[in-house]
C-alpha cells in the first residue's frame, strides 16, 4: 500500500497559484509512469476563498478520487482546518513553518496521529528564489521530497513550464525546488510511510480532463466551427478550440451571447460545416428557441452542455447533473434531439466525434451532457485509449456535388422517406436551390398549413426518433452479474461508481453498476432488460429529483427502489456511494 498509492491535496486561496502548481505536479508524477486522478474544487471568485486540487496517485489505473488524503499541502490555515479530517493516522501535513495555525487545530491533528511537516517554504522562495510566488514551487518540490519521488521529474516540469519565461526564471525555480526538496527529504522522508517510485518502462500517457477529451474528439470528428459565450465549466472547450483554430483549420467565435452562438452554429451547420456550441446550463437555456429551429429545419448542430448546479447562476464552479429532463424536452413542440451523456474521458472523446455523425445522420441537434466533474477532472490515459482508428465520419444522406450533378429531376429538401431522413444538400449547388424552413412546410420546403402537409412532415420528422433509437447504445453493465444490488447512473457518476464497486465487491459480489450513456431516444428495451433481473435497484444521481429514475420509469415502467442522491455541488466519491449502498442494505 504505502508505495505508489496515495493522494495529495493542495489547498489554499484562489490566486495563490495552486491550480497551475497542481497541474505541473500531477504531470511530473504521470511522467514517472504512474496513474493520476486529479480532482479540482474551486470557487466562483478570482482571488481568495478556499480552493484545492486532490491528486490521487496509483500504480494501477484509477477512475476516480478517494476521500482519504495522505499528504496535505496546506497553503493556508483554512486548508488545514478543512482537510485534516480526511487524513488518516500516519498521514502528513506539509506547510510553511511560519504559517499561523490555531492551537486547537493542531491538537486535533495530533489526536488523529497525523504528522506535521513544517518547511521554510516562504524563506526558501524569498531567499533562494527571490520571490514569494515561488512558494508553490517549493511546496510541490517538498511534497516530492517527502515521498522520495525523484527530483528529476520535478526538474523536467519546471523546465517546460517556466521555459517560456526565460532561463533566469527556470533556474530560480529550480533552485527553490531543489532546496525545498532536499529539506523535506532530509527531515521527513524517513518518517513517512508513503513513497512514489517511478515505474520503469511505463508507456507515456496523456493527462487530460473531460473538456479536453471532448474538444479533441470534436476536432477528430471534423468539427470546423465553434461558437460560444464563456460559461463555466463549458468555456474551456471554446478556449481550447480557439487556441487550436489556426493550426487545425477551425473558425471559433466568441459571440455576443449564447443565442448568437447557437444561431451561428446552426447557420454553419446549414451550409455544411460541422459546428459545435460549448456551454453550460444557463447558456443552454438561452439556446432553447434555436434548438427547436434546428429540429424543424433539420439542421445538424452539436451542443455541449457541461452541467453545473442550478437553478439559475447557482454554483458556477461545481458539480451537478440537473439538466437531464430539461435537455429531453427543451423547446416548444415535438422533434428529435439526440442526447448523449459521456461518463469517462474516453467516452467524452468518443462523444466528441460521434455527436457529429449523429447530428448529420439524423439532421438534427445533438446535445452532449457533460458535467463539471468530468469536465474539470484530469486522468492519465494511454494514447490508444482515445482510439483514433475508431473515429468514423458518417454524414448520412448528405448529397455530394457529384451526386447532385447526376440528379435527375428536382431536388426536394424535405422529401418524405420511410426512415424520416431526407436526402440533404447544402446551399451552393445549382441543382439544390431550396428554402430551409422553420414554419411548417411541405416536402419541398414551401410554407404549408394544410392538414396533409402538417401530418406528413411532422410524422416524417418524428419517424427519425425511432430510426435514431437504433443508433443508441445500450447501457454498459459493470461488476459481477450475480451481485444482488444494481446501481444505475449516467454521466460521470460511472467514475466513482467503478471504484465503489471495487470496495463493495472486495469480499463478495455485492453490486453491479448500470451506466447509461445514450439517453435519448431512450434505449428502453435494453435498459428494461438490464434491470429485469436486478434484485435491489438504486439510482445514483448528482441531483435531488432523480431525473434518470423518472425517465426510466416513464419509458420502461420500472421504478428504481432506492436513490443515492447528492446535490451539494460536489461529485460523488466512491466512499459516498459505498455508504449509500450499505445504508440501503442495512435498512
Amino acid at each position, binding site marked *: 500500500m504505502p508505495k505508489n498509492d496515495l493522494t495529495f491535496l493542495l489547498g489554499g486561496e484562489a490566486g495563490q497559484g495552486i491550480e497551475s502548481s497542481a497541474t505541473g505536479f500531477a504531470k511530473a508524477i504521470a511522467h514517472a509512469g504512474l496513474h493520476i486522478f486529479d480532482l479540482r474544487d474551486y470557487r466562483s471568485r478570482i482571488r481568495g476563498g478556499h480552493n484545492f486540487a486532490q491528486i490521487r496517485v496509483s500504480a494501477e489505473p484509477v477512475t476516480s478520487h478517494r476521500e482519504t488524503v495522505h499528504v496535505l499541502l496546506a497553503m493556508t490555515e483554512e486548508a488545514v482546518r478543512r482537510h485534516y479530517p480526511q487524513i488518516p493516522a500516519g498521514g502528513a501535513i506539509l506547510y510553511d513553518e511560519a504559517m499561523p495555525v490555531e492551537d486547537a487545530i493542531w491538537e486535533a491533528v495530533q489526536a488523529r496521529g497525523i504528522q506535521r511537516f513544517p518547511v521554510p517554504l516562504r524563506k526558501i522562495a524569498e531567499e533562494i528564489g527571490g520571490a514569494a510566488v515561488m512558494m508553490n514551487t517549493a511546496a510541490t518540490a517538498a511534497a516530492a521530497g517527502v515521498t522520495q519521488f525523484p527530483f528529476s521529474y520535478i526538474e523536467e516540469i519546471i523546465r517546460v513550464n517556466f521555459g517560456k519565461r526565460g532561463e533566469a526564471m527556470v533556474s530560480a525555480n529550480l533552485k527553490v525546488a531543489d532546496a525545498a526538496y532536499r529539506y523535506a527529504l532530509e527531515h521527513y522522508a524517513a518518517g513517512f510511510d508513503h513513497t512514489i517510485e517511478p515505474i520503469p518502462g511505463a508507456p*507515456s*500517457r*496523456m*493527462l*487530460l480532463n473531460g473538456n*479536453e477529451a471532448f474538444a*479533441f474528439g470534436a*476536432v477528430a*470528428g*471534423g468539427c*470546423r*466551427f465553434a461558437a460560444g459565450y464563456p460559461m463555466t465549466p463549458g468555456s474551456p472547450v471554446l478556449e481550447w478550440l480557439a487556441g*487550436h*483554430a*489556426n493550426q*487545425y*483549420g477551425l*473558425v471559433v*467565435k466568441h*459571440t*455576443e451571447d449564447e*443565442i448568437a452562438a447557437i*444561431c*451561428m*452554429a*446552426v*447557420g*454553419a*451547420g*446549414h*451550409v*455544411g*460545416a*460541422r*459546428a459545435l456550441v460549448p456551454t453550460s446550463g444557463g447558456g443552454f437555456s438561452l439556446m432553447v*428557441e434555436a434548438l427547436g*429551429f434546428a429540429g424543424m*429545419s433539420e439542421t445538424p448542430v452539436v451542443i455541449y452542455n457541461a452541467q453545473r448546479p442550478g437553478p439559475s447562476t447557482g454554483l458556477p464552479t461545481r458539480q451537478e447533473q440537473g439538466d437531464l429532463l430539461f435537455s429531453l424536452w427543451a423547446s416548444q413542440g415535438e422533434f428529435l434531439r439526440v442526447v448523449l451523456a459521456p461518463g469517462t474521458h474516453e467516452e467524452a472523446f468518443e462523444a466528441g466525434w460521434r455527436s457529429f455523425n449523429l447530428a448529420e445522420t439524423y439532421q438534427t441537434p445533438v446535445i452532449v451532457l457533460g458535467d463539471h466533474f468530468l469536465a474539470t477532472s484530469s486522468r492519465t490515459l494511454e*494514447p490508444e485509449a*482515445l482510439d*483514433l*482508428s475508431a473515429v468514423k*465520419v458518417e*454524414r448520412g444522406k448528405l448529397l455530394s456535388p457529384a451526386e447532385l450533378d447526376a440528379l435527375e429531376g428536382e431536388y426536394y429538401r424535405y422529401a418524405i422517406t420511410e426512415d424520416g431522413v431526407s436526402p440533404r444538400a*447544402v*446551399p*451552393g*449547388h*445549382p441543382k*439544390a*436551390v*431550396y*428554402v*430551409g*424552413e*422553420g*414554419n411548417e412546410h411541405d416536402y*419541398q420546403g*414551401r*410554407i404549408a398549413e394544410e392538414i396533409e402537409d402538417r401530418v406528413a412532415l411532422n410524422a416524417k420528422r418524428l419517424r427519425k426518433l425511432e430510426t435514431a433509437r437504433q443508433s443508441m447504445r445500450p447501457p454498459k453493465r459493470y461488476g459481477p452479474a450475480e451481485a444482488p444490488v444494481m446501481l444505475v447512473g449516467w454521466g460521470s457518476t460511472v467514475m466513482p461508481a467503478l471504484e465503489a464497486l471495487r470496495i463493495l465487491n472486495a469480499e463478495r459480489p455485492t453490486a453491479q453498476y448500470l451506466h447509461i450513456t445514450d439517453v435519448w431516444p431512450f434505449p428502453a428495451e435494453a435498459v428494461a432488460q438490464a434491470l429485469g433481473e436486478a434484485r435491489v435497484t438504486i439510482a445514483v444521481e448528482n441531483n435531488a429529483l432523480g431525473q434518470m429514475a423518472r425517465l426510466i420509469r416513464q419509458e420502461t415502467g420500472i421504478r428504481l427502489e432506492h436513490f443515492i442522491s447528492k446535490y451539494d455541488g460536489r461529485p460523488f466519491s466512491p466512499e459516498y456511494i459505498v455508504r449509500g449502498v450499505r445504508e440501503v442494505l442495512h435498512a
Partner: protein
Amino acid sequence: MPSMKDLQGRDRPTWCPGCGDHGVLNAVKLAMVNYNIEPHQLLIVTGIGCGSKLPQYMWVNGLHTLHGRDIPIATGAKLANHKLYVMTVSGDGNTYGMGLSHLLHAARRNINITSVVQNNQVYGLTKGQYSPTSETGTVTKTSPPPAGAIEQPVRPLALALIAGATFVARGFAKDPRYLADIIGKALMHRGYALIDVLQPCVTFNRVNTYDWYSERVYKVEEQPGGYDPTDFAAALEKAQEWGDRIPIGILYQVERPTYEDHLPAIQEHSLVELGVHRDTAELERLKREFM
C-alpha cells in the same frame, strides 16, 4: 446572368396587394440580375415577419429562421462558407427590436453580409402592434392612448454607423430599381452592409404610407453640392435626419478588412471546402500536447 424569370419562385407572394414587400422582392431579384448573381450563389437568411417570407417567393437559397435571429445565423453561414453571398431580409420589429444587439455586433465585426430591413414602422404579421421605429405617439393595440408609443424611435442607421458598419444605406420600396442598385452595391461591398428600406404596410400603417414617404424622401447624391459617402460625420448627420425630409441612397461606404479577412483558417478554402476528414498523423501530434 440570371433573368427575372429564372428567379421566379414556386409560389406567388401572399403579401397584401400593394404591400411594399412586393417592391423589395423585385429589387432583390433585379439586383441579382444586374450584378449577375445566380440563385445558388446567394443565401438569403430571413427572420420572422411578413417580409421575412421573401425567399419563398423567388428562386434562391433561403433559410427562414427565427424572429430576430437572422443576422447571427447568416454570420455562421458566411463564416462556414464565405464563398457564398449571404444576405438577411427582415422587418423592423425583427431587426431593430428582437435583433438589435445582433445587428450592432455584426456591424462591429464587419462581417461580409448584407442586411435588408423592411421597415414599415409596424408589426405586420402579428397584426399591427407598434414597432421600434414607430413614431412617438403612434396608437396601436399595444400602445394605447393617451400616450401611444412612448419610446423615442430607433435610429438604426446612426446606431449602425456608431457600431462600425462600413456600408449604410436607405431605400424605398416604391423605387425598386434604385433599391436594387443599392442592394447590388451592398452585395459587392466587402463588409457589413445595412440597408433600411421604407416599406409601406398598406394594412396596418395608415400614417407612413407611400405618399407620406414620397413627400419626404430625397436622394443624398442629388442634394445640392453632392454627397461624399466616405465622410463619417456627414453620414452620421444624415443618418439622424428624419421628419420632413428623409434621405435615401448610400449614406456611407468605406473599406475596412472584413471579419473573415482576419481568420487564418479560411484564407484559402472555406470551412465547407476543408471538409470533415482529419489526418490521423495530425491528430496523433495533437495527442502529444496532452503528454
